[in-house]
């Protein structure tokens, strides 16, 4: 098919000018895009209000989608449940008995912990979530892994707060709109999270790889103590997350750490809790030390290299 003849300018001055203007506007648009792109790569938070407004509009539609998603998952699970009810019942009964024993042990440890903390004069206030919300959507076409939350600035959510599901860490709030917020998921390749092994104090960084797995990089290099199946929890270094929340399970070891799988998968969660920044004082101190690279609303603090040397120092305290 040939293009319409109306778009051949010929000798008509008017047609020639309108064709030229079209090219001029398109070129100007491309140039504007380049400038905006460089600006937003340099200052990632510059267009946060604009994006917040857009995600506020999308969030209600996402809410309906989230409800449908969680219901359909429940439906498939209940159909599957009929096929393996008998064997599962026996296995579950056995597992519950073991869990009951472990629970009693944990109670004893908890009591001892309270006694020791009392001796030291430490006090842990229970953390109250700022808001409960649904994950309503994600950036499914972009290589970046962000998710949208159905609660925003009007619910008290601010950038830097941690997003936690009943299974473990989901990510951290990056930008907020009025009724929605954007969450940096752990799998994003710019996400860095200080973690430690659950059973002892091997500290490491969990970095997103961009393909759904986390790369665990040990802070102290030497013989790699990690084993497949080890549970990594947040260490609380850096001050953003409260310590002891499950993050990932090691699935493969490498010379400098390991590759880990997420415990809390955002697509399988229904509701998440947004918790306040655990140690605001530490975060503001790190921000001050980090200089201009970390000054963009604190959201990209742990994603910038300058915060990496600072975090182990706080872990050692």
């Amino acid at each position, binding site marked *: *098919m*040939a*293009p*319409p003849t*109306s*778009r051949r300018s010929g000798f008509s001055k008017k047609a020639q000018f309108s064709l030229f203007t*079209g*090219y001029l*506007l*398109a*070129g*100007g*648009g*491309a140039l*504007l*895009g*380049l*400038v*905006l*792109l*460089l*600006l*937003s*790569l340099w200052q*990632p938070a*510059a267009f946060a209000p*604009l994006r917040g*407004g*857009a*995600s506020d509009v*999308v969030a209600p*539609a*996402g809410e309906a989608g*989230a409800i449908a*998603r969680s219901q359909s998952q429940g439906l498939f699970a209940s159909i599957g449940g009929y096929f393996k009810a008998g064997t599962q019942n026996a296995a579950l009964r056995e597992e519950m008995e073991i869990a009951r024993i472990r629970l009693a042990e944990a109670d004893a440890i908890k009591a001892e912990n309270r006694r020791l903390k009392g001796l030291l004069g430490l006090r842990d206030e229970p953390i109250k979530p700022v808001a409960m919300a649904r994950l309503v*959507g*994600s*950036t*499914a*076409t*972009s*290589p*970046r*892994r*962000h*998710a949208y939350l159905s609660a925003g600035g009007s619910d008290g959510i601010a950038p830097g707060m941690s997003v936690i599901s009943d299974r473990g860490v989901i990510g951290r709030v990056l930008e907020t709109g009025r009724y929605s917020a954007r969450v940096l*998921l752990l*799998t*994003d*390749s*710019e996400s860095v999270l200080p973690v430690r092994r659950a059973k002892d104090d091997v500290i490491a960084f969990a970095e997103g*790889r*961009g*393909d*759904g*797995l986390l790369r665990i990089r040990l802070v102290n290099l030497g013989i790699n103590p990690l084993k497949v199946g080890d549970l990594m929890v947040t260490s609380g270094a850096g001050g953003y997350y409260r310590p002891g929340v499950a993050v990932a399970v090691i699935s493969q070891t490498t010379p400098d750490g390991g590759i880990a799988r*997420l415990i809390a*998968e*955002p*697509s399988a969660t229904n509701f998440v809790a947004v918790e306040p920044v655990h140690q605001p004082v530490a975060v503001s101190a790190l921000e001050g030390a980090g200089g201009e690279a970390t000054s963009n609303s604190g959201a990209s603090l742990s994603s910038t290299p300058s915060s990496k040397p600072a975090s182990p120092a706080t872990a050692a305290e």
Partner: protein
Amino acid sequence: MEQLDPRARADIYGQSINRAPSAWRVRSVPYISIMLASLAPVLLMADVMPLAPPLGFLLLLGWRMVRPGLLPLWAGAPLGAFDDLVSGQPFGSAILLWSLVMIAIELIETRFPWRGFWQDWFTAGVMAAAYWLATLLVSGAAVTQAMLLATLPQALLAILLYPIMARMVASLDRFRLARARRIS
């Protein structure tokens, strides 16, 4: 005549006597459909890797290829700005890339005025692959081998989706030009 067969004086756009296409529909359908296609992948929960092809971009390609001359040359910039707001890319990436693609297709069209379906698919495929690579480079994330492997299905899907997109644009165009307004 209508008493014998109600579709006697109708074509694919509907009744042809005292009917005209709605002016609003004629102008707005391409833009609204591209914006909706930009929004659609947001509702998908992709936590592991980018799952959906860039639907907004593919529909822009579709409208540009199937109905040349309908979208002005500069349409890439405003539509790209809307896509940037929800896509998660740094703001400005789609404004730049969509504008460049519109200019590139215009130049290809002046060079090869007579085109067919296969050549359209080839052009759209090259554009989609180039766009996929460019979004990866400007996303602000480091491009690693793992990342490339994880996003490769997205590129293949984008190339393979073009024929479906072209058919979709054709049916949207029929809706756009349907004679919905009654002239009294």
